[in-house]
Structures are given as structure tokens and as C-alpha cells.
């Protein structure tokens, strides 16, 4: 069975339903399709903007996974260290801009998809990442995986996102109150990617 890969880096939006159909129709052996889409949040926690890596602080361990759902309201309370930041914790962004390294990003994404292919039995993979200026609720990224069985699709989708976030050459900046600020990398993303490093955690 030949594996099909669709990698796109683009300014324009993507259509989740259309991408799902492409994966679904890619082969009659497809029994499972998993898609993940990442969106622009309306604000970032101040503590997320300060680099946890730079500070050598490892507080991100258990927060990364559900951060998108739990938007951080009130979360500062039980974080002694960050209390001084609480007043500005909820600070809406006006714009999120994504820069990338053309040429290098595409080849890194190909490498990441190839690694997923070696670890799981995949039939089709789609990675779409937007660049340029985005606003809250915009779609940023889509990862979609089609496989015969669900476990391969679930795990590969998570692996692809974890590796994309820590290896693909994209840089986010946000603008709030007219001021541009680069987003710092998160220790929790590094840890999420590191869990795939073992040889047989499949």
C-alpha cells in the first residue's frame, strides 16, 4: 500500500471537511481518520510568553495537554511564582503572526511525516500550516492521518503535532496593545515531544 502525503504551508485558510474527505477517500483500506486542528486563542498567559526553558523552570509538565481547553482563567492562583503576573494574566491579543523558513520548513515536515510512517501503519497523512497574520479563532494548523486501525491514526497524529511544534521552523509573534512580542517556546512542548524518544513506546 503506498502512503500518500500532503504537506502545505499557506497563508489562506483550509477546509477541515474537505481535508477529511481527501483522507477518507485516499484508499479503500482506510478504517480510521484522525484530524487535529489548532486555533489562535484570544490570549496567551503571561507566563507562557516568558520562556520556561530560559528560566530553567520545569513547571510545564502536566499543563501542556489540556491547555487549549482550560484557558487559564484563575490558573495563576495556585502558582506561587507567577503571582506577580496575575493582574495581566488575561491579556487579549490583536494579532498573531507566523513566520517560517521557506524550503527548510517543508523538508522538516517531510522528515517528520516520514518518521511517523516508519513508526505506524499509515495510509495517508496531511499537514497544513498557515503563515502570515491571523486573528483569534482562526485555524493555524491541521494534522490528519488515515490508517486501517484507530490506534495508528491517533498516535501518529499526536506524534506529528508534538514534533511539528518542537522541530518545524515556525515562529509566532503576537501583537497586543500595538506592541509586538515573540512567543517563547514552552518546556511542556519539549516534554510532549520527548515522550516519543523511547524506541518502543508505540
Amino acid at each position, binding site marked *: 500500500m503506498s502512503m500518500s502525503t500532503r504537506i502545505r504551508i499557506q497563508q489562506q485558510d483550509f477546509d477541515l471537511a474537505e481535508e477529511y474527505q481527501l483522507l477518507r477517500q485516499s484508499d479503500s483500506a482506510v478504517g480510521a481518520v484522525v484530524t487535529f486542528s489548532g486555533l489562535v486563542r484570544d490570549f496567551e498567559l503571561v507566563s507562557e510568553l516568558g*520562556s520556561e526553558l530560559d528560566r530553567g523552570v520545569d513547571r510545564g509538565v502536566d499543563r501542556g495537554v489540556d491547555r487549549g481547553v482550560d484557558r487559564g482563567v484563575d490558573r495563576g492562583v495556585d502558582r506561587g511564582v507567577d503571582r506577580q503576573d496575575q493582574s495581566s494574566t488575561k491579556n487579549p491579543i490583536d494579532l498573531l503572526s507566523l513566520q517560517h*523558513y521557506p524550503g527548510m520548513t517543508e523538508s522538516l515536515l517531510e522528515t517528520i511525516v516520514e518518521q511517523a510512517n516508519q513508526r505506524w501503519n499509515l495510509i495517508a497523512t496531511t499537514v497544513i*500550516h498557515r503563515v502570515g497574520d491571523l486573528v483569534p479563532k482562526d485555524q493555524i494548523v491541521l494534522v490528519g492521518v488515515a490508517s486501517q486501525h484507530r490506534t495508528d491514526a491517533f498516535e501518529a497524529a499526536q506524534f506529528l503535532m508534538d514534533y511539528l*511544534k518542537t522541530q518545524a521552523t*515556525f*515562529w*509566532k509573534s503576537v501583537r497586543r496593545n500595538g506592541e509586538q512580542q515573540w512567543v517563547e517556546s514552552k518546556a511542556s512542548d519539549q516534554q510532549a515531544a520527548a515522550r516519543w524518544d523511547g524506541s518502543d513506546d508505540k
Partner: protein
Amino acid sequence: MINLLFFGRLGDFAKQVPATIEASTPAEIRQLLAADFPDLARELHQPQVLVSVNKMIVGWDQPLFDGGEVAFLPPVTGG
């Protein structure tokens, strides 16, 4: 000549840096930039900063050849 690229926050420190330079390794580029752009050089010394030559991640001692493209990459934040 070596073509220089600075991504993410490094770009903010490199606005006045010439687009090309003569150097034999990325480490030498960093050293040469320190004279006129000390803030940038300090950023380039951060251990999380990676360097690529012709779009491949390499070590700081990677030999450079005329026409090569050297990019300085802060930690990525896509997805």
C-alpha cells in the same frame, strides 16, 4: 560571501546586519558580529539557538563555502 538569515526574535537584533559576510564557520560569523552587534552576539550564544547551513541544522564549526546560506534559528514556536 555567505548569506545570512535571522529568524524569530533574532531578527529584531539583526536589522542593521549586512545580508552577507565573509567567514569560514558559523562560529566565526558569531564572533565577527560581536564587534558591531554585541546584543545580537549575546543572543546567538544562547544554548537554544540553532544554526543551519543551506537549510540543514549543523554544528557551529561546520565549514562554510562561498554562496552558502547560514540561518540562525531561535527555539521554534509553531503549531
